[in-house]
């Protein structure tokens, strides 16, 4: 093992834990104290990552306030060091973390709002792709429709929550200034679940509300199940043709393949 590797392992260990120190003899004298230098690097890393989370989850931040968010971010960063130098990809586990974060128990919709913010963030920077023309299915013989598998637009994300996270998010957009704490109770938020398809088929991010059955149907299509099987599994009592037509007009697909029946 190289001495450089040992130095770096020791440095990161010290950087990651507030209780650790670096050996004085390992650094040149004549400048600021070793502990003070380490504190700068530590702050760069932790404050930097907390800033990334704050930019990605602004509505969550305003729902709980800056101090609570800073605490949650600090705890998340400690247990989730970044694995990529692309910081736009950091923080994807934050919604799951919030769902299990005891201190946030009194805000049960928090992780759902975070999931919606993550979906919007990912949709915004997904590669561009030309949506499938709404008329494209007309050329497919009816007997082949059952084995048709859709290719989804790369920006498509599905978000489901037992809370009306889309309504909470929308109320925030309309009513809140940046950096102002957002009090949900001040708004008339309907008591319902949210099942959403979020995507950027054109220039802007768009959201499509789905019924329970339609959400199940799209969830199956998105993992590659053929149309016939997804139809059957989604059960009765809804209008799959209309959902399919809506998805086509929305621009959720970029293509399709006919698989072996």
């Amino acid at each position: 093992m190289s001495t450089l590797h040992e130095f770096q392992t020791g440095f990161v260990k010290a950087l990651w834990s507030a209780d650790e120190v670096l050996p004085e003899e390992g650094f040149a004298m004549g400048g600021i104290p070793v502990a003070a230098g380490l504190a700068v690097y530590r702050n760069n890393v932790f404050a930097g990552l907390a800033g990334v989370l704050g930019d990605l989850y602004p509505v969550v931040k305003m729902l709980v306030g800056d101090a609570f968010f800073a605490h949650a971010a600090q705890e998340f960063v400690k247990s989730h060091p970044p694995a990529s130098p692309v910081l736009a990809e950091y923080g994807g586990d934050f919604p799951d973390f919030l769902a299990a974060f005891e201190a946030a128990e009194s805000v049960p919709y928090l992780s759902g709002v975070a999931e919606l913010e993550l979906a919007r963030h990912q949709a915004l920077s997904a590669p561009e792709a030309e949506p499938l023309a709404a008329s494209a299915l007309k050329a497919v013989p009816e007997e082949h429709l059952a084995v048709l598998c859709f290719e989804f637009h790369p920006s498509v994300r599905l978000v489901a929550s037992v809370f009306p996270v889309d309504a909470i998010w929308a109320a925030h957009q309309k009513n809140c200034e940046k950096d102002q704490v957002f009090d949900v109770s001040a708004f008339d938020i309907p008591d319902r679940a949210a099942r959403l398809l979020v995507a950027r088929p054109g220039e802007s991010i768009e959201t499509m509300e789905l019924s329970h059955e339609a959400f199940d149907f799209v969830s199956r299509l998105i993992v590659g199940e053929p149309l016939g099987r997804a139809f059957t599994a989604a059960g009765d009592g809804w209008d799959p043709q209309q959902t399919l037509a809506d998805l086509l007009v929305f621009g959720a697909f970029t293509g399709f393949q006919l698989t072996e029946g």
Partner: protein
Amino acid sequence: MTTVGRNESSPGRAPGDDQLSKSVGISLKPVHFDAILETRPDVGFFEAHPENYMQGGGPMVQGLRDAGDRYPLSLHAVGLSLGSPGPVDSVHLGRLKRLVEDVQPRLVSDHLSWSRTGGVCLPDLLPLPYTQEVLGVVSDNVSRVQDVLGRAILIENPSLYLCPKVSKDEVVAMNETDFLAALTWKTGCGILLDINNVYVSANNTGLDAMAYLAGIEKGSVGEIHLAGHKTESGPAGTILIDDHGGPVADDVWDLYRLALKRLGPVPTLVEWDTDVPSLGTLLAEADKAKALLQQVLLSGSHEHAA
């Protein structure tokens, strides 16, 4: 393995871009995208961190392409972790290569630092002990990047808050400028001389900034960076933090004058990354650099490279 070697670039010339040599650029910030397209400011080049544009699509990538259609670009990486032992992360390097092919920057650079160890990528530029072992590690990584990209890159001196002295048994034998000189000689890379980092590091690690500048090899610098820093005074003394969050300090302008006098005209970037001001404020800061660069060009007073 082919390497972009010293002998392939003209003697006494940094692997930079001659057409940019008299120009001053600014950081490309998404908040300025619209203003740039609407006002088409007189800017020599725009510089961006490629790590912010690697996700494949969306308004960020479009903004970079729009700027690239109208201005020369420089891609200034922060994530290659050239000071980590073992080969550079091939996934990250592949993404950088695709972006370089997409937007065709005039300059590509990263730092003399490390950020990755044991699968963790820290969002900071961490200090290296300047040992022979580390010179080997960084040289191999720089050569690998240059091979994959098919071009020479520039390596920036980091802002230091600690100066690692010893790597276990091996006592550090080189100072940073010697290390950079050896690196350019071994790999054919150029130096991105960050004057603010020289000033910040000198304060924080007890070095002499003027001696540092005098130690930079003429003809090896392909770009200069200028930026603001903040000053924190406390029981630990005065710590300068390289936050790129304000105007360039007077002392740093003085060092820039000295550097230009010694090095001749070098493409110069004014960075501003936190508390980003209006485009106009950033342009005004760039104009100060432009005036100094013009003075050097007109007087011809710089000491000519050997």
